[in-house]
């Protein structure tokens, strides 16, 4: 294996162990709770941070806690070398707020709210929201079943010029 790979791995591991408390460090294979993961500056200002943790978490309690392996999975999905397929798959899962396998109106609304920020002055009015969601469904819901499924999503994403370059997190 090459040097730079190890450097990346070490830096990832360092960042990860910084999140652990002292007594946790001795335990093998421990899980960092979501609240502490979210304090990472790279994730701090991301509106999808909680979703990202939930998607990559393998915790059985569904609390979004990440082990080091999960953390590496996260980084690899957001790395430069991940393919469009991987990236779009995870993007879909991140946007699928209720984990039901499709993006329905509720998911899209939550997504818009995430994108426009928490403050009220940037929020869209219900009328605008309705219009926006209708437009999106009109474009990407190819089979007209009222939801966007994974293949439709990937179809849309694959043509986007700047998805791959923006779906990245660098430690």
């Amino acid at each position, binding site marked *: 294996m090459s040097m730079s790979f190890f450097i990346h791995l070490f830096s990832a591991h360092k960042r990860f162990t910084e999140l652990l408390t002292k007594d946790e460090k001795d335990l093998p294979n421990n899980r960092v709770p979501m609240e502490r993961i979210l304090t990472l500056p790279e994730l701090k200002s991301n509106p999808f941070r909680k979703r990202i943790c939930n998607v990559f978490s393998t915790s059985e309690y569904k609390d979004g806690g990440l082990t080091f*392996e999960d953390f590496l999975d996260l980084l690899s999905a957001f790395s430069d070398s991940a393919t469009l397929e991987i990236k779009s798959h995870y993007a879909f899962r991140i946007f699928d707020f209720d984990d039901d396998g499709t993006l329905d109106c509720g998911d899209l609304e939550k997504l818009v709210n*995430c994108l426009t920020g928490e403050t009220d002055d*940037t929020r869209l009015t219900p009328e605008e929201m309705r219009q926006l969601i209708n437009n999106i469904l009109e*474009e990407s819901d190819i089979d*007209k079943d009222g939801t966007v499924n994974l293949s439709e999503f990937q179809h849309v994403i694959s043509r*986007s*010029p700047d998805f791959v370059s923006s779906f990245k997190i*660098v430690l």
Partner: protein
Amino acid sequence: MAMLIATWKHCVYVFATGLEDEVDTFQEEHERERHRGKRRDGERAKKKKRGNGEGRKRASRAGREEEKLQARREKKGRRKKSSSDQQAEGREGDEADQPTTKSSKAAKTRKNVKNEKTRKVEKEEKEDEADDEERNRKRKKKHGSNKKEENVEDGNTHTVKEKAGEVKKKKHKKVVETSSEKETSEEEDNEEEDSEEKEVRPETLTPEELETLKEAVDERKKLIQGLRGKPWAMKKKLVTLRESQEFVEKYEGALGKGKGRKLYAYKIMMTKKWMKFKRDFENFKTACIPWEMKIKEIESHFGSSVASYFIFLRWMYGINMILFCLTFGLVMVPEALMGRPYGTIPRKTVPRAEAPSAMDFAVLWDFGGYAQYSVLFYGYYNNQRAIGWLKFRMPLSYFLVGVGTVAYSYMVVIRTMARNANESGVGDDNSFNFSWKMFTSWDYLIGNPETADNKFASITTIFKEAILEEQESRKDDNIHLTRFLRVLANFLVLCCLAGSGYLIYFVVRRSQKFALDGLENHTWWERNEVNMVMSLLGMFCPMLFDVISALENYHPRVALQWQLGRIFALFLGNLYTFIIALMDEINLKREEENIVKFNITTWEASLYNISASENSTSPPVTIQPADVPRGPCWETMVGQEFVRLIISDTMTTYITLLIGDFLRAVLVRFLNYCWCWDLEAGFPSYSEFDVSGNVLGLIFNQGMIWMGAFYAPCLPALNLLRLHVSMVFKASGSNNFYMAMLLVILFLSTLPAIYTIVTIPPSFDCGPFSGKKRMFDVIQETLESDFPAWFSKVFSSASNPGLVLPFILLMVLAIYYLQSTSKSYKEANVDLKKKLQTQNEENKKKNKLAALKAQMDLEEARKAASPSAEHQKNNNASPDQEADEEEDRDRSQRMYRSKNRRSPPPHRHDGQLPATRAPVPRNYPHGNQGFAGYLPSFPRENEARMHRVPSLQRH
């Protein structure tokens, strides 16, 4: 005879799959089979009691099996001897058994072990979803020992049996076909038996087996290759990878034979090494890319668009680096090392009049004095054909480097454009406008809360604008007002452009007047007027355009493009007025040159006269090169102008950066603590750099470099220094828009340079081309003197218009052809897209219809099944009750069932049908017994019967 052989084989296969009852479809064996069935039931009971105990009957059965095994193990040899032998075996069956009891026991225990093994293997298999192929293979193996499977019957073995049954059927058919086929399939069976004891022996594999193995291996390889693209967790990936790699290693080696295997291992090793090397090399390459980590850092703070500016900058820097290497290595260094040293000839010496101030900083800063008479400028170079011990062709090298610079730049820009076009693909397609905004607008790299807030705001505005736009496109009102405003805005912009152009022209003319008067009499401002005016115009006009564009009410993206286009026009206009003014100056200089030329001849004549008259008395005077009168050398002047322009441009950039951004930011941040309103959010705030201004600046700068590089070889070097420090925070999508601008600028900036090279004769006393009529004559000169005669002949005939014109015509035709094909490709693309869409819709409709139909069928089936299920339950009741006491019986019955489902003996349909068929549903894991038994099993039976019929007929 053939039929008998087939019958025998059939028995073998049936035993192999543990389904002896299959045999009973043959008329002659019918009775015996029944008999055996009964016997077996009894035997099962005994077995239950005695464990491994053996009775005569059981032994006979086992014996028969053992016989069969033996027969197979001994391969075809015995069978080949005589078919009558086989016949006898087949017939005798039950009787020829007694002596083999012991060995049969051994065989049985071995089989048990095997069975255990296969079951374990199967459990492992379940974890791995991706290897259906392998599973099939193992299943095939398994059905050799399938007989024991019946002892533990569950849903799993049920499916296994089904599969085995299918495979068996296939084989059965095969057997019937030809006798040679029989042999091979017999062999196959053999090996399946063998392969459980040893590893795969490639020599024993049939081509068919090899084929499936190869397929499996290929499948695994594909899996390994595509593994990186699978959205799985790392753990799963690792497990799958390891398993498939093991599989591939194990079996791929087996595919080659003997030498091939060694070669294969070697090949594998080499590919592994090569892969490792490639990966290392990739890493090395990334480590070598300058500023990669810094750009990553910037990226993680300010998002990818800011980073893309820096990537553009880096790209530009790379180009300049190469241009610099070209000029430095092939022009400047050879001249400095091998050319005549400073002070030996007039063109390499500071004139006497300028000498006292030649070292002053102000003069050097203006690139006069010693700087002017150095390798930095055109005038310093000598017209000596070959210099130094290397016989370096200096003038030729100078010319070729000048041409090469431009050619390389064209190549790089066009190549990058093509690559960008490839990457963006169908980038312009607007069909997913909203979805892209929704799904891809967040930049996950943003880690800075302030940037994130800005992003939220910008996304909101983007959404709102998009919605508004959508609404407006539906009802387009007040078109006249917007049209009027747009025309007005363009008019204003044109006025600005014309004004700035005139201003520059005016200033340049004035500076020429000043220059004639002598620079010393004027202030600093008057001397640097031209550059300052140009820089200031470049600074303020874009702001003005920004204000004007507010009138137009364009969509932001369109507005940005207009804005960029206008700035582009402004810069270009300024540059061209500058060049036109320069051309005027060049003409002036050339007139001056003629005067100087005349003066020099008179001066030389007078010198000659003096020396001639005093010849007898004194030695000839040696004239200092500094005293020789010389021409104005317009080339150096042009070079100087460009260098000054670049310097002043850099200065203004820094000053605006310092005042406009840095000081403002400092003031805003620190005064904010003691100010009456919020400075950060309110009026001054932090400077918002205009989006693409910086990229444009870069591009224009590059244009100036290209323009002036021929006359001032130092320009690329200067640009390197400049780019290195001008790390301004600005954003741009490095898309083809900028590259197109760069290309246009490149073209436009090479135009004047080429014009001057081609049309204006070089100065008579400076530069590498002095003494020639035109600069490009150097090529002809080289051709004539350095190449054999035939070469120049060929060259001249090749440049004859009769050849050149057809060639150009051909190129035009090729361009036309390529263009039309690309157009048709585009159309095909659109068509395909449409087709895909309609197909998608159709598929969906079809699926929905099918689902609906299936549901209806189900409903009907349920209705129909409910009475029959009742009926079946009644039938079931009795065997179920008995099952508790008589497990063996039940088991055998189930076996019956599974066999029946595959191939119900047609002739039995009369009497026993209800009894055998009744329990069928219980084999299905479905909850609803009635309908499950009803629905899927019936078609299956039909299918099975259809399979049977042809085979029966052949018998």
